[in-house]
């Protein structure tokens, strides 16, 4: 135990040194551009779920409260909306060919819907060949990347990777993995892991899964072959995590994590070194109120879904 403590203290010190002492050290900066809008002004939404269509560089925002899905062009203007038939939609993803995937859930099951480019449902995709470990699987998050769909049961920390026809390709039991990796006495382990759930989830350009676990004040990156890395420290200062929310990576490998408690979006490089953060609680347009889901388009614009019906704010990120 003493040996573990010594290791932990040592690495704690290193991590503390890695956190910039001030905002000025950051070379990456974010600038507020605009909120997603239509001709009547900013479109309100509450913790919308976001997805980017990379082919057309359009952003989709699913407003769970209103059961509507709105499509915005690369200038942030609404160009189309649909989704009234999806009463309990929990997430949305866009395929390479413009197909729209909508995930809905009920008490008993989740359903994956395929829609055409107009949002008209064309079929339900049945999940096939799920292993026994996934017998109670009920997805509530959805990501399309590298030609496959990632379905996530955030409460059980299960990830099922399926083809576009629903055939199971591989799975990940992140709950078991996290429990294997946790140290400490019985009470400590119970407190840390008895009731964890995943919040943010995304897949980067290399196929690594990114996810956050709010109750651990941490974010994680897991490669397709199972290598898991975690980062983050609890705290209220720059670079530290309060309640972690959404997570996404850009083309340069930078990782963005929203912090619902601190009301910021933190930017880390691909080695998990803190670069900068933006937003902050407040009522200015550039401020954020309980930021949650994140998305990034081909132009490097970062989309941030918020609470308080503040809709989705768009930021541009530059590095010097």
């Amino acid at each position, binding site marked *: 135990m003493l040996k573990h403590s010594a*290791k932990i203290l040592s690495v*704690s010190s290193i991590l503390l040194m890695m956190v910039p002492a001030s905002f000025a050290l950051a070379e990456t900066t974010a600038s507020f551009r605009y909120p997603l809008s239509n001709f009547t002004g900013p479109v309100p939404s509450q913790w919308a779920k976001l997805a980017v269509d990379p082919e057309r560089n359009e952003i989709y925002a699913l407003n769970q409260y209103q059961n509507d899905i709105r499509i915005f062009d690369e200038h942030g203007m609404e160009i189309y909306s649909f989704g009234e038939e999806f*009463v309990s939609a929990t997430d949305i993803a866009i395929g390479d060919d413009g197909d729209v995937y909508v995930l809905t859930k009920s008490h008993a099951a989740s359903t994956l819907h395929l829609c055409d480019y107009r949002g008209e449902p064309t079929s339900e995709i049945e999940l096939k060949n799920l292993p026994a470990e996934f017998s109670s699987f009920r997805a509530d998050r959805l990501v399309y990347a590298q030609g496959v769909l990632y379905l996530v049961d955030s409460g059980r920390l299960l990830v099922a990777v399926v083809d576009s026809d629903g055939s199971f390709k*591989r799975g990940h039991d992140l709950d078991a993995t996290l429990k294997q990796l*946790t140290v400490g006495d019985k009470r400590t382990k119970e407190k840390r892991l008895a009731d964890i759930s995943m919040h943010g989830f995304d897949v980067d350009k290399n196929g690594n899964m990114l996810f956050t676990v709010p109750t651990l004040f941490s974010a994680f990156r897991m490669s397709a072959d199972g290598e*898991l*890395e975690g980062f983050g420290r609890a705290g*209220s200062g720059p670079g530290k995590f309060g309640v972690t929310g959404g997570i996404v990576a850009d083309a340069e490998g930078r990782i963005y994590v929203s912090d619902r408690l*601190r009301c910021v979006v933190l930017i880390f490089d691909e080695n998990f070194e803190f670069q900068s953060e933006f937003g902050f609680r407040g009522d*200015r347009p550039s401020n954020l109120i309980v930021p949650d889901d994140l998305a990034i388009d081909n132009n490097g614009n970062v989309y941030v879904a918020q609470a308080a019906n503040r809709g989705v704010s768009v930021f541009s990120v530059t590095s010097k």
Partner: protein
Amino acid sequence: MMKLNRMMLLGLALVAFLTLGIGGAAWAFHDGGVAHCDGCHSMHQSADNPVSGTPNDTLLKGSDASSTCLNCHGGGGTSYHISSTDGSARNQGGDFYWMTKDYTVVVRGTPVLYGKDDHGHNVIAADFTMLVDADPDNAQAPGGTVYNATDLGCNSCHDPHGQVLGGTAAGGAAISGSGSYGATAPVDGSILGNYRLLRDTGSVAPGGMAFGTPAPIARATNVSGSSYGAIVDYGSGMSEWCANCHTTYTDGAQKHPAGNAEHLSAGYAANYNGYVATGDFTGVLASAFDGLVPFERGVTDGSLLSAAPVAGADTSSNVMCLTCHRAHASANANAGKWDFEVELLVESHALVSPDVPAGAAVYYKDAVVVDIATDYGPYQRSLCNKCHAKD
């Protein structure tokens, strides 16, 4: 076959290993008493988390107290989440989602609005679009004149600092654990926190109202792997505690009796124990407890309550507010655990309204959704009959 390479995980997971070792955890964040300060407050507000507009003078990380709570407790399903986006939260207290959801039901050809403000406690959480209830009937806590809607928040009922007996400054001993889960009284001079961090005698809620009666006694039990305190065995004092604000609801004056002194008669206890469902009176004392219609057992020590209550009622038992109502909110009017306005529960307004999401948990107990037709029967009538057996 799942492609889980766990040996590789163990070999290459140094960063995660250490992170989990030093990162701390939010589970048991309160641990029966006050948590670490910067979980809710920003010590140097303007430096690292500036607030524009109207700063809050308590340095809270939310726009108000309840918004701060919901930063963590917002969400659905089970666990410690009590405010979902689709009515899916299934904790004992209920889901504040229903305070944000109007729904309509067509009654005799006319759409009737079931307004969100009638489904529970209208807590103010600006970040979550929960604002002061404008209904003049709810300007003050019903049944009383001592608590204003403009002051209502999570911290009206829960003491975010978890103080017991006034806390250290008033001579209270150290809190060594939660009082929510049936722990036995410590023998080292420390004390347990209150059930659900509920405010204690003398505790002053926002707006200045001081609580005159102590926190109730109850024991919550987690459902394995999925829920915080989903099962509750109630001991005593709940109605008296609610009456801190709803002052006249326990005075017995033309109101349903509730409270520690209002023990069930032998006849009502027999009804409770025999009643299983409409048309089924085959229940027995040993297994008659129904989590949808709980009662207090007249017990004043939480450790004497059950982690898995199944036994029915006796003449020490009493009805309490939470026998019929959710503490936070529910899908039904008046925060009812069931719909008080329909004859057959399968016709409950929230079940038939097209506005209610498919994922909403209109009926549930022990964190599990209840299908009225399957679990009780298609002709199940009001659960008032659990005691009254008039069906």
